[in-house]
């Protein structure tokens, strides 16, 4: 049976990039369609009529939307390099912290670009509290997934983005002193070729920072 995989994404979307990383980790061949979010392709609108957002994975003409839903679908369809652990409790924990990243950390990070002064300080405090949750999750582990990269590591790539943003803007929200384990994890994953392939390319990073500081409402999930 022919496996046809197309993937609608956008270069600056962390949700899109995490699915890309998942595709590469499973070595799934796919055709990539870069979406211009101000001018979405008819097929994106057809494949994701409910949200009209990227990323969307289309497998044998069947669309799957929402990055976490896509990654779980991939894990169940392509069984090599499993993302989620086997144990139901560990799976629940991976899903819990992944959801925490999307429901709490990401919105707070998005808010950061829009705030200044005292509000900015308070937002940074909030981020630090949230980062502490993830720092604690790394105790005694090489990766969030344990010995190897897994579901939560893929979702947590936003931490690498945060680190890169800090290097560019000079505002280091993620400090090595406060979050040594996260830092070690970042160094570890950044040694992986697939991870680097899914980061914002260096020459586009300035554009990305400006974009992040402009739009509070994202067009991706």
């Amino acid at each position: 049976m022919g496996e046809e995989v197309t993937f609608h994404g956008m270069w600056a979307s962390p949700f899109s990039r995490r699915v890309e990383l998942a595709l590469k980790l499973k070595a799934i061949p796919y055709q990539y369609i870069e979406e211009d979010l101000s001018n979405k392709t008819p097929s994106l609108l057809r494949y994701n009529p409910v949200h009209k957002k990227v990323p969307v994975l289309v497998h044998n003409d069947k669309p799957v939307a929402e990055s976490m839903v896509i990654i779980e679908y991939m894990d169940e369809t392509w069984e090599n390099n499993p993302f989620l652990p086997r144990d139901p409790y560990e799976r629940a924990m991976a899903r819990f912290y992944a959801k925490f990243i999307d429901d709490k950390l990401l919105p707070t990070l998005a808010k950061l670009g829009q705030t200044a002064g005292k509000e900015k300080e308070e937002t940074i405090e909030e981020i630090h509290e949230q980062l502490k949750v993830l720092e604690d999750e790394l105790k005694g582990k090489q990766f969030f997934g344990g010995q190897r990269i897994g579901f939560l590591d893929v979702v947590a790539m936003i931490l690498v983005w945060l680190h890169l943003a800090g290097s560019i803007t000079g505002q280091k929200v993620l400090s090595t002193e406060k979050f040594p384990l996260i830092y070690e994890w970042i160094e570890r994953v950044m040694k992986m070729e697939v991870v680097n392939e899914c980061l914002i390319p260096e020459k586009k990073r300035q554009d990305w920072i400006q974009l992040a500081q402009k739009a509070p409402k994202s067009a991706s999930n």
Partner: protein
Amino acid sequence: MAESNVKVLGTWASPFVMRVKIALHLKSVRYEDVEEDLLAPKSELLLKSNPVYKKIPVFFHAHNPICESLIILQYIDEVWTTSASTILPSDPYERSQSRFWAAYVDDKFFPALRRLVIGATEEDKKAALAEVVEGTVVLEGAFGELSKGKAFFGGDNIGFVDIALGSLLGWIEVIGKQCETKLVSEAKTPRLVQWADCFSAHEAVKDVLPDVDKLADFGLKLRAKILKALAPTN
């Protein structure tokens, strides 16, 4: 089959807690029901077992706490596999569609419902109402797709999406009464109306359906508490 070490920390009024109980009923798992009073300060047990969110439900199995209702549902489905009832379908694509729609309920529909209750201005409430009604129409469409002509989103039996949306029916009715509108209407969403009746009558559901008047009364108290917490402090 009686299970030791299965506990649900929650409250009769919470739709999210209801989800967990329905799932356990479907799997015929007996559990200890621990009531958390949402109008009182949070219990030690809650703060200790869900330090990240400090919210119910918290599901305990063999002393391990698990939080977030949809995550708990998947855990229950993955642990109690000998039951004839499955919560998620077995086909990966169908599972992805179930997860997508359950996420829609939690990430789009429920927040709009919540805004309808705690909306600060009449304008906010009007906008929220429009969103909720639009949401029901979208869900009516989803029902058509997923049910494939059967009684439930899950087909012949209730599943993930049924539980996610069905658990909100009590609140939908209460909030609708307050807005003097049927939020799930015969005119716009006839299939959902029928589905709601089937869901509410289901074996695994009927014993945990909250009494609507009791819920309305509780809702007023909870709303007051939420608004007080949201109000700017001095």
